[in-house]
């Protein structure tokens, strides 16, 4: 079995948003829609204040509420743990969006352009009518992951078959790999460090781990 997960080292993330930009470039998301974003969270009270940068997006839960509620079976969980959306099946009811506790799903009903009324050349070229009025979200760059089967490369290690956000991370804070593979990069990170997952109490078994300290 394979389960692809992402690991974000909160000690390393500097909030540069390069992953956000890389995701936008790789997936051509419309203005206002970011499948990967980095939150800037300030905690504590003066003088004990901390600032933490937290990458978020679809957590690719093992028990995803979005998949449970989807009336059209457009949202599916693949055998490798990636939660995907079939844009041709989706009816755009938005039920998955209200079921997701990570605010990871977006529905865009009308084409929006980055600068005024004139579309840029890249916006015209990469516009996808099939993604209008249906749910969309991070898919761990599944096209790249699927290419690994043909090339024999390893997702999370070889950049060609690794999500764009991970490739772009300049602080080496984002990692991707197969959690079920005992020799994988992410398994090693999870074994060597202390981690948590967001909103773990909701029981969705998210596939996104946050490192907060090394093992003691």
């Amino acid at each position: 079995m394979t389960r692809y997960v992402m690991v974000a080292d909160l000690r390393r993330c500097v909030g540069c948003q390069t992953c956000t930009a890389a995701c936008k470039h790789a997936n051509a998301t419309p203005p206002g829609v970011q499948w990967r974003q980095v939150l800037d969270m300030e905690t504590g009270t003066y003088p004990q204040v901390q600032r933490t940068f937290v990458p978020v997006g679809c957590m690719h839960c093992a028990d995803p509420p979005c998949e449970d509620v989807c009336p059209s079976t457009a949202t599916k969980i693949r055998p490798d743990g990636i939660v995907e959306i079939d844009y041709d099946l989706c009816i755009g009811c938005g039920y998955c969006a209200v079921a997701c506790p990570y605010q990871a799903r977006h529905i865009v009903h009308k084409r929006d352009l980055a600068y005024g009324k004139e579309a840029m050349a890249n916006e015209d070229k990469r516009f996808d009518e099939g993604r209008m009025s249906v749910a969309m979200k991070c898919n761990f760059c599944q096209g790249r992951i699927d290419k690994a089967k043909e090339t024999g490369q390893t997702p999370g290690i070889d950049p060609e078959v690794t999500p764009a956000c991970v490739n772009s991370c300049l602080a080496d804070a984002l990692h991707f790999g197969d959690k079920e593979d005992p020799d994988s990069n992410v398994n090693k990170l999870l074994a060597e460090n202390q981690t948590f997952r967001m909103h773990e109490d909701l029981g969705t078994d998210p596939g996104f781990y946050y490192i907060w300290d090394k093992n003691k």
Partner: protein
Amino acid sequence: MNGIEPWHQVNWDWRAAGNFIGGGSGTGLVILAAIASLPGSQGVLYWPLGLLGAVLVGIGLFCVWLEIGRPWRALHVFFHPQSSWMTREAFVSAILLPVTLIAAVTASPYLPLPGVAGGTMWLAAILAALYLFCQARILHASKGIPAWRHPALMPVIVVTGLAEGCGFLLLGTALFAGSASWTLALLIGLVLARWLSWRRYLAELTETGAPTKALAVLNGATPMINNVGHFAAAVVAVLALIWIDAGPWLGALAGLLAIAGGWWMKFVVIARAAFNQGFALPLTPVRGQGEAGPGDKPGWRN
């Protein structure tokens, strides 16, 4: 781009609320119209009320159709009965609407078939109860909206559907049948049950924790819901029981107040208090040789 604190979801608006309003009132009416048609009751006419119940459910479904992004793929809604309460609601509606229409037509003077009407109106009532339950479960399964997923909301949705149905029954009684003391007593009971279930929902939601803004919206709307939908409706229903001559019309007024309270309650829950989960950190990362700092859940109470 949104921030860290919970913000109001943008995917379900008044059209979604319309489904819960129409569906709840319609199914409540289909159930209570069947009960009111029992021998020995006040002999209210089933056919106009059953028909109205089906129309209300239909209006609710039409609201959903207006809401979905790809309306011409609407039949895909039937694809996931294994776990989706929306699919289950759709399946129930596909049987509920024709059965209710058959019951109404065969109970009418235009195509009187008492043998058929008797069975189908009870089948319609059972299907209506299932539909109402599906609606309650739809909200409970919305894990991203703390005010919806709380289990204490489910009895509120069911009870308010019945109370609204009873309100419509009182309207129908005033128009077609005259006085109806048991219906008034039932409305008082249902309004009391709704008041108690709403109180319990608010108390438990506050205790288990919810976005501060959602609690503010719900608490802000409660006086209006209570004053109109509960207290005024109950007082007018009691007056209708006492003042026999004006009973039917006072009963109709009590019914209208109960309906208005229920509709406003659902509109507030669906379209005003639907703040999402937001983001949270259980603790902050260790940097250098320091210690982990306390976490935070911005925009939440508890």
